[in-house]
């Protein structure tokens, strides 16, 4: 199983990405799509990353997931650049023989993405304010569930 890892500016099609994970040994495909929330008068998000490190960090998370669960396929897509409310920002899809492994692996990857991949979000608001999103302690707690 070779995970599909992509860091890209353009959007993606979650249905098509999920369908690509079907076939082979798969009896279950679990997918997650993260969207830009428009709350608080948000106008746009700007996603910055550490290009030479990002893909390796995602590969490491994917490899950890593949070690813990029997996966037939795994896809991680993370967008960078500017995104408006409602746009897709991240996709995780995991395929396995049984639903438990697919769901757990997908959940693990999205939790670890939050704390172990070098991305930073900057918010721009309709009223002109802007600022960097602060990391949430809850994210670290979510991740620790898997250790």
């Amino acid at each position, binding site marked *: 199983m070779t995970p599909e890892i992509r860091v890209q500016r353009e959007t993606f099609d979650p249905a098509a990405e999920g369908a690509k994970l079907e076939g082979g040994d798969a009896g279950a495909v679990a997918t997650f799509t993260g969207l830009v929330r428009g709350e608080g008068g948000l106008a746009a998000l700007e*996603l*910055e990353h550490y290009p030479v490190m990002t893909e390796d960090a995602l590969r490491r998370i994917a490899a950890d997931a593949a070690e813990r669960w029997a996966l037939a396929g795994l896809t991680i897509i*993370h967008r960078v650049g500017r995104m408006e409310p409602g746009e897709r920002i*991240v996709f995780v899809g995991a395929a396995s023989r049984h639903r438990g492994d697919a769901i757990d692996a997908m959940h693990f990857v999205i939790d670890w993405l939050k704390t172990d991949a*070098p*991305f930073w979000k900057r918010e721009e608001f309709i009223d002109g304010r802007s600022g*960097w999103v602060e990391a949430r302690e809850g994210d670290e707690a979510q991740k620790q569930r898997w250790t």
Partner: protein
Amino acid sequence: MAIELLYFAWVREAIGRDGETIDLPDGVETVDALIDWLAGRGNGYVEAFADRSRLRVAVDQEFAGLDAPLAGVREVAIFPPVTGG
């Protein structure tokens, strides 16, 4: 020894540049000591490094602690806690 420094997010904005190459001074042996030395330059560096609990680093593209040694290191990135996903 030349070392590549990279800054991201508000660390980059406070310093006013996304990176630089420096000659590592004698006696600067850890990331912490490097940050002390950089903060000695004043201005944006002081602002960027004021609260060290808000800083994270990667050494040669691997997440590391502020106590990470610099011997043989080529690239150090300094940034806030990550907020992807």
